[in-house]
């Protein structure tokens, strides 16, 4: 177990290093920070002055290692536009993104577990095919488009839910649904496959031979085993959702980390963009590790 954790930590470090390099290179490729700080009416001299003042004239490698060196100690630098520490910017907005991600995950599980079980129990019937079709549609649907559709129907026409902002829990429902849609197909298919496999197993035959109720056979004996891969993927999906909320936070005007990233990309605010990418990558790696640990908890054979 210890060896396993150490190995995972090494992988996590490698991932972090890769992500930092890529984030650094991509932000430099995407625009010139000096130009955007100087503003649209700046002359070439102004831009050069800004470049010097912010140390952007130094070689890229120097800038990179300076950033990495600080980041390792937890110092993510300062935003050029918000005039604030990047770490406090992210910390301030993280709760919104995490709330959104968890809402999305809960909705996704509430939909995909029952659907997957239903499809498995009715394997190869029309119902099963309909469920799989719906799952496929969900995967094919762009989230910004679904978000807009929901805003028009649930928000404007029916008036059930607020369409933007973060004032109450209701504000998280619609973006949560949109976020969940991206995770539902995979989770539903995985639940279905796991349940079909479990239901055909010898231990389910034993459970039936014991005269257990249908509910106990399905939900206790089969689901417990089918859920093992689902839990792992759900944790990974949560990572996707936290990262993928950039679009949705934009659409629903939720001022979370995704929104911050979007704003900063527009302004070439490199320190913020780099830090957001790094933080999300680290969370993602941590979640995949958590998934493995949860597998070990759920599956006694792995303990």
């Amino acid at each position, binding site marked *: 177990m210890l060896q396993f954790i150490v190995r995972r930590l090494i992988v996590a470090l490698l991932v972090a290093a890769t992500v930092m390099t890529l984030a650094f290179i991509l932000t430099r490729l995407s625009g010139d920070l000096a130009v955007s700080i100087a503003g649209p009416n700046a002359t070439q001299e102004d831009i050069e002055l800004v470049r010097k003042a912010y140390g952007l004239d130094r070689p890229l490698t120097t800038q990179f290692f300076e950033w990495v060196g600080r980041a390792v100690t937890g110092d993510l630098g300062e935003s050029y536009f918000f005039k604030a520490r990047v770490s406090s910017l992210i910390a301030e907005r993280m709760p919104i993104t995490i709330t959104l991600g968890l809402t999305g995950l809960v909705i996704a599980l509430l939909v995909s577990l029952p659907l997957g079980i239903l499809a498995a129990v009715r394997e190869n019937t029309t119902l099963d095919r309909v469920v799989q079709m719906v799952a496929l549609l969900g995967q094919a649907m762009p989230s910004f488009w679904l978000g807009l559709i929901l805003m028009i129907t649930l928000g404007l026409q029916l008036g059930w839910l607020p369409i933007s902002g973060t004032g109450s829990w209701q504000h998280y429902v619609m973006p949560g649904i949109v976020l969940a849609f991206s995770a539902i197909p995979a989770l539903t298919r995985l639940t279905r496959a796991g349940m079909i496999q479990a239901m055909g197993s010898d231990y389910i035959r*034993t459970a039936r*031979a014991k*005269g*257990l*109720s249908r509910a106990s056979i399905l939900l206790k004996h089969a689901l417990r085993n089918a859920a093992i891969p689902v839990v792992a993927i759900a944790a990974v999906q949560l990572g996707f959702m936290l990262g993928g909320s950039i679009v949705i936070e934009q659409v629903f005007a939720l001022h979370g980390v995704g929104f911050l990233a979007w704003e900063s990309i527009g302004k070439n605010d490199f320190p913020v963009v780099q830090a957001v990418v790094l933080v999300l990558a680290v969370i993602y790696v941590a979640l995949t590790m958590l998934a493995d640990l949860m597998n070990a908890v759920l*599956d*006694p054979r792995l303990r």
Partner: protein
Amino acid sequence: MSALLEIEDLAVSFGRTGAVRGTSLTVERGETLCVVGESGCGKSVTALAVMNLLARGARRTARSMRFQGEDLLGLSDAGMARLRGNDMAMIFQEPMTSLNPAYTVGSQMTEVLRRHKGTPQRVAVDRAADLLARVGITAPGLRLGQFPHQLSGGLRQRVMIAMALMCEPKLLIADEPTTALDVTVQAQILRLLAQLQRDLGLGMLLITHDLGIVARVAHKVAVMYAGKVVENAATAELFASPRHPYTQGLLRCVPVPGKIKRDEPLGSIPGTVPRVGPDFEGCAFRERCSFADPTCTQEIPRHRAGGTHDFLCRLPA
């Protein structure tokens, strides 16, 4: 009093294959009936049909199926579930995979008792520990808290047996319970089953392909071939004077120390059990039978050869 289990003319088909084609069996209280035959002869399907545990897509029909006088054919799924694990229990050929890997031995054993008798958990745990001790498991308290993967195949099969006994069943159906085990463990499990059967007065339907097992534990034997019982007899009678050519062939395949000579080839039956449709006519063994003649394609009469001995062959007694 009616027999413990009485099946008349059971037929099970999977699409165009007739797995069981008119099988009649009777198990009396406290009696062990062995059903023998090669792989694919329909013996396991017969056992599963009694428990109503057949896979989806199987078609089960019978003239009658009675358990303690109760009609099993007319029972609803819920009614059948009330009998299973309670008055009739079953153990399987695959001890390695028949226990749920996600739950402890104790949890899996006690849930049967809670389900059927509403026994409180604490009492159920005590009974589970008693039964584990009874099937020869040392340190039952420790085993109750363990997961199946921590136990050997022999131990798991003992757990399955103990679990089957939780509700004091009247009938135990055992489908090749020792096939997957080491020879030494096989002997232990068999001895255990025979002893439990005697002590608890269990009726037992034991499915096996091993005539050595039959000789040791069966009171009577039904020999199955291609979905039909081709010979019924009390155990001693069957071994002394087998009447059906298939039974005779099976017995020739068993080496008996002292009776066979060192370099003499052991008997064998050429070919394998054919897959036949539900409406197959005549004797299904005719292709492999050295006594076969054209009349074997017609309907075969069942001959009596004494009180409880009968066989299905055109050749008269």
